[in-house]
């Protein structure tokens, strides 16, 4: 082979952080090729996708709003993935948070007290945690694979949500639309700025960011979680009890996703609708990996992902490109990341002997 991979013998710290950047660059490169193939000007399309949507203050506030749910979900997933618990269920946990929060909210529309909001947020967060607890229970008690159970619970949560907006939670005065009533003023997250829709959920996201950072980087529990993820047997020998750690990681994961969900309905949306989440929980998987399961990395990755979301919307409106471009880029990025990660442990090497031999063969062929 012309190109061969040579083991480095140790992790390259440089590549550990360069690989996500490389993946992002490769994704944009591939995307440009795609735009050219579709007959669009690649630079202009990239501008529409990534720069135009955030060129004014309103755009920036929309960007922040989209970042919040992705960031919250991805932070939770990072905790689970550090322990090698493959929670794919952030989407379902988010939906359940939104659903449970709304179920409370529509019953206290007239309550004027700020406690209404607290109650709703708590319910949503707990519901997300409870949905993840199902996965934890199935895993620890019955040894059921958490990837499959959490995915199945996503589909169940979505159908539960659809059932509720078409049935018990449907707004009686809503002309039969599958939507809940609008929440009362006191149940809505307060806005932070006069311009735009940035809401108090931002504080929760920042708080979660710090909390997860402290948990993973500074606490003993975080250390235990990491050891469990690196080598479950070693964790056993060290006397770390596996089951409580699995529970903890999944509960944190679910609670943050639930909080993300309830912040969506109590924040920008203001009611329960079937499309609470355009796949935030799935996007968070890519974000968690792209951010190297590190809270700071995840912050940047979720900003990038949110940008792709609003960019996808603007590309649809102004260039008539399918909005699915967001998911497409998401998938490409994760793929490129995994492929680039090979460079962490291996060094690519041009095989000169191969060229020399090829040349000799050619010369011999010429001599004949």
């Amino acid at each position, binding site marked *: 082979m012309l190109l061969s991979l040579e083991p480095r013998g140790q992790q390259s710290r440089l590549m550990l952080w360069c690989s996500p950047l490389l993946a992002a660059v490769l994704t944009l490169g591939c995307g440009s090729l795609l735009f050219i193939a579709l007959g669009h000007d690649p630079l202009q399309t990239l501008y529409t996708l990534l720069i135009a949507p955030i060129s004014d203050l309103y755009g920036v506030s929309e960007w922040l709003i989209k970042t919040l749910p992705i960031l919250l979900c991805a932070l939770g997933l990072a905790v689970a993935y550090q322990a090698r618990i493959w929670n794919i269920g952030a989407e379902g946990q988010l939906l359940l948070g939104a659903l449970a929060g709304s179920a409370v909210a529509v019953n206290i529309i007239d309550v004027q007290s700020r406690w209404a909001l607290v109650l709703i947020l708590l319910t949503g967060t707990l519901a997300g945690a409870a949905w993840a607890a199902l996965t934890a229970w199935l895993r620890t008690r019955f040894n059921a694979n958490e*990837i499959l159970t959490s995915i*199945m619970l996503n*589909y169940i949560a979505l159908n*539960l949500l659809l059932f509720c907006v078409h049935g018990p939670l449907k707004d009686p005065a809503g002309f039969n639309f599958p939507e809940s009533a609008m929440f009362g003023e006191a149940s809505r997250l307060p806005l932070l700025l006069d311009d735009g829709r940035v809401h108090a959920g931002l504080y929760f996201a920042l708080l979660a960011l710090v909390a997860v950072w402290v948990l993973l980087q500074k606490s003993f529990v975080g250390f235990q979680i990491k050891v469990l993820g690196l080598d479950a047997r070693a964790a056993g020998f060290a006397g770390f009890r596996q089951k409580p750690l699995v529970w903890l990681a999944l509960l944190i994961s679910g609670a943050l996703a639930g909080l993300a969900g309830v912040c969506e309905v109590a924040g920008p949306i203001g009611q329960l609708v079937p499309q609470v989440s355009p796949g935030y929980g799935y996007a968070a998987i890519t974000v968690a990996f792209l951010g190297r399961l590190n809270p700071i990395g995840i912050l940047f990755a979720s900003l990038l992902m949110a940008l792709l979301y609003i960019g996808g919307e603007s590309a649809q409106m102004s260039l008539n490109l*399918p909005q*699915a471009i967001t998911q497409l880029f998401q998938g490409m990025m*994760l793929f490129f990341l*995994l*492929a680039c990660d090979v460079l962490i442990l291996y060094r690519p090497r041009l095989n000169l002997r191969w060229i020399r031999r090829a040349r000799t063969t050619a010369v011999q062929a010429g001599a004949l």
Partner: protein
Amino acid sequence: MDIDLLSNIFYAMVRCGTPLLLVALGELVCEKSGVLNLGQEGMMLFGAVIGFIVAFNSGHLWLGVLLAMAAGMLLSALFALVALVFNANQVATGLALTIFGVGLSSFVGAAWVGKPLAGFEPLAIPYLSDIPLIGRMLFAQDLLVYLSFALFALVAWVIVKSRAGLIIQAVGENPDAASAMGLPVLWVRTLAVLFGGAMAGLAGAYLSLAYTPMWAENMSAGRGWIALALVVFASWRVWRLLLGAYLFGLASILHLVAQGLGLAIPSSLLAMLPYAATILVLVLLSRDAVRTRLYAPVSLGQPWQAGH
């Protein structure tokens, strides 16, 4: 319940179980060789959309089927490159493949959503299809269902009886020993992954060309994931895969049964059933950790490199 209703239920059960069977057969071969490919859902959707677009524009259903299989193989080749050659984590790579496939298929198919297509029609075999109860189920299906019967027989024969099956299983149980015996481990695994991709593409084509002849985003609705659970349910044995696929087919058509019995249950609640059944099955079968360890291919999901 009269016999006509029962015969209809059996018929719909097989129709509904067919895509699951096709994906699960591919994944079974893949897992037997030691590779866990979680990208089934993505490959299936890409197959579905490519199959639909090709059939819609060319007017040839079989060309659609063929290119759908090629599309599934193309994505699985990406998986093989990253997971087998670059030795990336198979779980993460499979997830990436699903996310990529879902996005790619929605992107490619955006202009084809809701377009009508005359798909595969049922083809009743004279006399045989008149057998009460099982006649319609086995002999009045469309050609792709018959193809799934044949593919099941082929995979069963390959795994249980053939030398190729022994090689695949040797590679999956102990790649080091297999390699020492001179078997090309990476090639066997790559071929198994490609076969899985082709089967997922075929299952996708079945969805968009026969089951519901149209294209809609995410039309596979988690069938790729259910198929993964099916392989666990079957304890990696091919006969139980057939049984499982049709049982899940039955779970997804329970709304027909409910209608037949005159029950009024909201459709979104009934739609949960296959997923809930999947969880239940996983619980029942994984409870005994020893048993799972006994049947699962030993090197399942482990990266492997020559000379280690």
